[in-house]
């Protein structure tokens, strides 16, 4: 066998191996996805949306409490985290720029984006749950807010930096004060990018379970009071799936399906937004 034939053979072998590994990887992922869809769709019915949690074996058992709890926790965390994240990102891009402080904040935020979320949960347990004396929706909200801020902050920072500096200069040249330039020109120019960042940030925290386990805890019934423990889809899913009761497990799959579709939907919308922006 000549050297070239040998190389061609190695090439062929590696190509086959990596195609194979790609197929193995993709097959596993498809398997998970199809199970999620099959179990999820078959478990979804109107009772899921109409009823609160009920003991195993009970007919009228649903996820209303968890859906509403999830909605309250996520939207409150978003309402707090998004403005804070955007303002913080504004500082990095518009004021701090490449200063030492701004770069340190960027680095630390980047690390926080990958830090274990269960650690945030234990932190909130210490600073919110213990002083309050009990688990509460607020504790969960604050935990998710802390996870969300670095994400929004960094995407805002990146997106604002993409706005051409000539735009800012043109506005300054007209005598506009800096805050007006930022709000009227820079934010407007980065609108789509910031919105995408928000959607992906929401998608990211919506799937968090670990930081809620011992903050917002759980509640098998509907509660809209953030001062009390509150159900979420993720924690409910965990509790139901690890229970020995088949009807609870099925409801767990329904929760998994609803949550995944929500998160995938946000991701897909985010992607489409990016594409329309590129298309322009």
């Amino acid at each position, binding site marked *: 066998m*000549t*050297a*070239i034939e*040998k*190389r*061609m053979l190695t090439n062929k072998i590696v190509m086959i191996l990596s195609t194979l590994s790609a197929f193995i990887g993709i097959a596993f992922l498809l398997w998970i996805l199809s199970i999620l869809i099959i179990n999820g769709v078959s478990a979804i019915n109107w009772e899921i949306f109409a009823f609160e949690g009920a003991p195993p074996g009970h007919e009228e058992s649903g996820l209303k409490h968890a859906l509403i709890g999830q909605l309250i926790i996520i939207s409150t965390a978003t309402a707090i985290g998004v403005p804070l994240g955007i303002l913080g990102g504004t500082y990095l891009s518009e004021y701090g720029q490449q200063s030492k402080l701004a770069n340190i904040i960027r680095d630390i935020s980047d690390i926080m984006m990958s830090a274990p979320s269960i650690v945030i949960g234990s932190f909130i347990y210490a600073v919110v749950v213990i002083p309050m004396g009990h688990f509460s929706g607020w504790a969960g909200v604050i935990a998710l807010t802390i996870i969300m801020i670095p994400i929004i902050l960094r995407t805002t920072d990146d997106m604002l930096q993409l706005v051409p500096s000539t735009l800012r200069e043109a506005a300054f040249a007209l005598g506009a004060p800096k805050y007006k330039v930022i709000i009227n020109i820079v934010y407007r120019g980065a609108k789509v990018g910031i919105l995408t960042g928000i959607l992906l940030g929401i998608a990211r925290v919506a799937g968090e379970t670990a930081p809620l386990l011992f903050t917002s805890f759980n509640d098998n019934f509907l509660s809209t009071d953030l001062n009390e423990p509150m159900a979420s889809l993720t924690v409910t899913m965990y509790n139901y799936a690890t229970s020995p009761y088949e009807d609870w497990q099925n409801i767990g799959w329904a929760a998994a399906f609803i949550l995944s579709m929500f998160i995938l939907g946000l991701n897909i919308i985010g992607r489409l937004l990016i594409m329309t922006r590129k298309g322009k």
Partner: protein
Amino acid sequence: MATIINIPHEKALEVKDFQFTYNGTTEPSLKEISMPIAKNSITALIGPSGCGKTTLLRSFNRMHDLYPGNRYEGLIEFKGRNILEPKEDLIQLRTCIGMIFQKPTAFPMSIYDNVAYGLRLQGIKNRSELNDRVEKALQDAAIWKEVSSRLKHDANGLSGGQQQRLCIARAIAVEPEVLLFDEPTSALDPISTQGIEKLVIELKEKVSIIIVTHNMQQAARVSDYTGFMYLGELIELGITEELFVTPKERLTEEYITGKFG
């Protein structure tokens, strides 16, 4: 109809009725091109941007095959065979027809390993043979003196002009019969450009050269034959001095006198 002279030289390559169509388009980017490429000479391809000169150059080593869906028609004859045949062994072809790119493309490895790369691909493992051929290639590329003391250094530490000569050394180390230059000096300063041009002229003793350039002076300085291309067609191929002094086609004249382009 195009004016194509007959060349007195032996031919290295012969293009006949060649058409090339990019993936996803119906209109061919190169239309009905026929031309000889003289052996041990330099053939320059000139023309305004988008005329297809680089597309033609990249057909000679079938670079277009890296991206699916591109179509060749017609014939490019090399050593008695049509290299456009699907069964053509591209790896063999590319070791016989080397290429130098617009920008220096030093690989992320040492100077020595860059030059030895093609040799190792051919299965040469013998240390002393590798050493000899690397040294010879670097000498032929007129860069040996500058790098002989730091062969183990990262090639990306060299200047742009040095990197481009290193790439030439890498290409000639495998002793190709044809070398394709795709605007080899477009990223270089005037002094490095001069060095590369001198080197290209020296190299024609050993290889046949095709060079694409957007710089007419460069074509006039280095080449023996010049082909003028326009909108995917070869308008005129002539002896360089004649083409620049007494072009036979009106389009060629307009281009070299700067009326467009």
